[in-house]
């Protein structure tokens, strides 16, 4: 291993800002040019990136907060700024400082002690580091580049990043994309060269280990012609976050005949506003697959978007959302069919309980040039009690006569007969409900690598615990 690892950088030296005696970098309230310039300087941005950040800041001030989704008025802009300073990154926060709810989650999930410690940022990242590097060495031999975005900006892919970074999600897209453009830090860059198949999924474990840096992370993945990749967003464990806004950005480029599968399970802490933007563009004959599980956060706006830009490009979306008490999760997906014979298949499931609100929001657009395109959507919602809410808001904008579009939606409850049936075989009521809910989510967990499927089931178990009187 040569030099410092990425993990070390995140934990110790990346944010070598001024710290006050409490170890916190101080910024003035509000977001201003000086702060952006300081971040840019500390991160050693190339000039174009510095300009980009400043332009994004202007957009941020110009754009207004979205008014069509869940209420985010509880979001304090000052906190966002507070967050920009890397409160805990590089510091040595105590495991005992982690909120008890999250600590408990980790303990019940059986996340090893070492991993928990690294999560809290007190060293012991050795294990995760090793995993990361093993994977990296193996794929590096195939010419795959997998690194953090900051180092990539100064490496041989610098030009590739300049021509792709926030081209799919421009900072003019919405207020939080602009915010992201101004303050982004951390994240991964992956480039898979032509014809290369990466057999093992790449996983971004490092985000787990650096809670303070993950809020505005940027993921940029380019899968070149005929190549294939499975990328798993580093959510092998719930993330501990010091602040309450996540505005990450994911940009995925799937070139001609390439294949990308992007899996993620999110389990943010329940005070989080998750305003994440994910977008993919798929060229001729390419295939984009999304597997997405959303469990945590207070409010989520999450609609992975796919642009099917080349003939016969395909998109497959499998997602599940679980909204419990105090959660309003607005998730779904968007697909734009812009070339002939493109296809999209959507399987969305949602579960709501204890007053949780789960909304499936989708937009399927078929442009005039996309003759012969096909889209099928299947949405299923499960409400666990009458306090909870589940909505389905599908939008279809079809601009060609020659398209085959289907949408099916079903909202249901757990039948008391089914609970009686399972209980009559010895399962407790809680166990019976949990099995039914896990069973409902099964078609999604089947799509996940085993360890993640296990984790998802654990999450469901956790959410279902104590729901019976």
């Amino acid at each position, binding site marked *: 291993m040569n030099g410092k690892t990425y993990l070390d950088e995140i934990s110790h030296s990346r944010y070598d800002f001024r710290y006050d005696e409490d170890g916190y970098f101080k910024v003035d309230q509000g977001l201003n040019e000086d702060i952006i310039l300081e971040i840019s300087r500390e991160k050693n941005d190339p000039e174009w990136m510095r300009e980009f950040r400043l332009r994004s800041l202007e957009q941020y001030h110009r754009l207004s907060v979205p008014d069509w989704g869940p209420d985010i008025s509880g979001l304090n802009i000052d906190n966002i700024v507070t967050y920009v300073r890397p409160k805990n990154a590089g510091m040595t926060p105590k495991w005992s400082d982690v909120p008890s709810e999250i600590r408990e989650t980790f303990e019940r999930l059986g996340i090893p002690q070492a991993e928990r410690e690294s999560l809290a940022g007190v060293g012991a990242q050795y294990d995760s580091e090793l995993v990361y590097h093993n994977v990296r060495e193996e794929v590096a031999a195939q010419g795959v580049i997998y690194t953090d975005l900051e180092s990539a900006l100064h490496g041989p892919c610098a030009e590739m990043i300049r021509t792709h970074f926030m081209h799919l999600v421009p900072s003019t897209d919405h207020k939080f994309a602009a915010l992201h453009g101004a303050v982004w830090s951390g994240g991964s860059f992956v480039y898979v060269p032509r014809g290369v198949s990466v057999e093992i999924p790449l996983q971004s474990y490092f985000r787990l280990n650096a809670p303070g840096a993950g809020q505005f992370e940027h993921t940029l993945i380019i899968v070149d012609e005929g190549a294939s990749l499975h990328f798993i967003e580093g959510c092998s464990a719930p993330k501990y976050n010091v602040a309450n806004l996540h505005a990450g950005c994911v940009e995925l480029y799937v070139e001609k005949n390439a294949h990308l599968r992007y899996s993620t399970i999110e389990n943010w802490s329940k005070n989080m506003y998750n305003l994440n933007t994910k977008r993919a563009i798929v060229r001729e004959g390419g295939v984009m697959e999304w597997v997405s599980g959303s469990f945590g956060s207070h409010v989520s706006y999450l609609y992975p978007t796919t642009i099917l830009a080349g003939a016969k490009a395909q998109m497959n979306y499998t997602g599940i959302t679980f909204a419990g008490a105090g959660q309003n999760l607005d998730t779904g997906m968007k697909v734009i069919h812009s070339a002939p014979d493109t296809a999209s298949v959507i399987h969305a499931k949602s579960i709501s309980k204890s007053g949780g609100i789960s909304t499936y929001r989708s937009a399927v657009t078929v442009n005039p040039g996309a003759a012969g395109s096909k889209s099928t959507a299947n949405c299923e919602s499960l409400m666990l009690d009458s306090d909870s809410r589940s909505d389905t808001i599908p939008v279809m904008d079809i601009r060609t006569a020659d398209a085959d579009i289907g949408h099916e939606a079903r909202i249901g409850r757990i039948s008391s007969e*089914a609970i*009686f*049936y399972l*209980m*009559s*075989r010895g399962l407790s009521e809680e166990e019976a409900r949990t099995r039914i809910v896990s069973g409902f989510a099964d078609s999604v967990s089947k799509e996940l690598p085993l360890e993640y499927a296990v984790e998802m089931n654990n999450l469901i178990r956790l959410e279902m615990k104590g729901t019976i009187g």
Partner: protein
Amino acid sequence: MSALLSVCNLSVQINEQPILHHIHLELAPGKVHVLMGPNGAGKSTLGNVIMGNPACSVTEGSMFFNGSDLLGLSVDQRAKAGIFLSFQNPLEVPGISLFSFLKSAYELTRDTHVRLWQFRKQLSATLGDLALDESYLDRDLNVGFSGGEKKKAEILQMLTLSPKLAILDETDSGLDVDAVRTVSHGIARYMEDAGHTLLIITHSTRILESLHVDRVHILAEGHIVHEGDASLIDDVNAHGFERYLSRE
């Protein structure tokens, strides 16, 4: 000999509609009891209330099983006490394989742990007896099963869990001749264990042909109207339920 199940003066409502009235029923251990009666008599309700279906509310009376007061036990506690109900319409539960369900049920009712492969081996013999392919174990519980397959899966559960009391609710309904034979065979196997007791709920008699019936109870309009030995079955076959109806 004291009864395994003793139902005393039991009245039951569903959705505030009275269904069962002042039921007295005693099931003797190791015996085959048959509950007969016309459609709508309340036979299934009686099976369900013994199992503890929360849809059935007991308005008066008592039920004791093996000495313990059933009314104080939840459904799963009754299962653990040794009561089994084969459902008339077994529910389809997506995402739970028959195997993992059986394994959970086995472990929970016995408070034990079984080895995966050992348990599978144990099941495969029973599957063979029931003319069910082993692949059914990996299918989602009852999902896409035919009527006959569902009933066979119920018998598989009964034979695997080996409860003290098995209540079979219309297990023969909707089955073809071959399936009835297979299911009857499974039921006969269950009764090979001297510690097992059966309550067979039926409105036909096909399933009873290969069984030694000890006692027959006739339920009509929510009342137990007649009880007797196996000869009652022939009587019902000859005359139907007509003479038990419209008492008022």
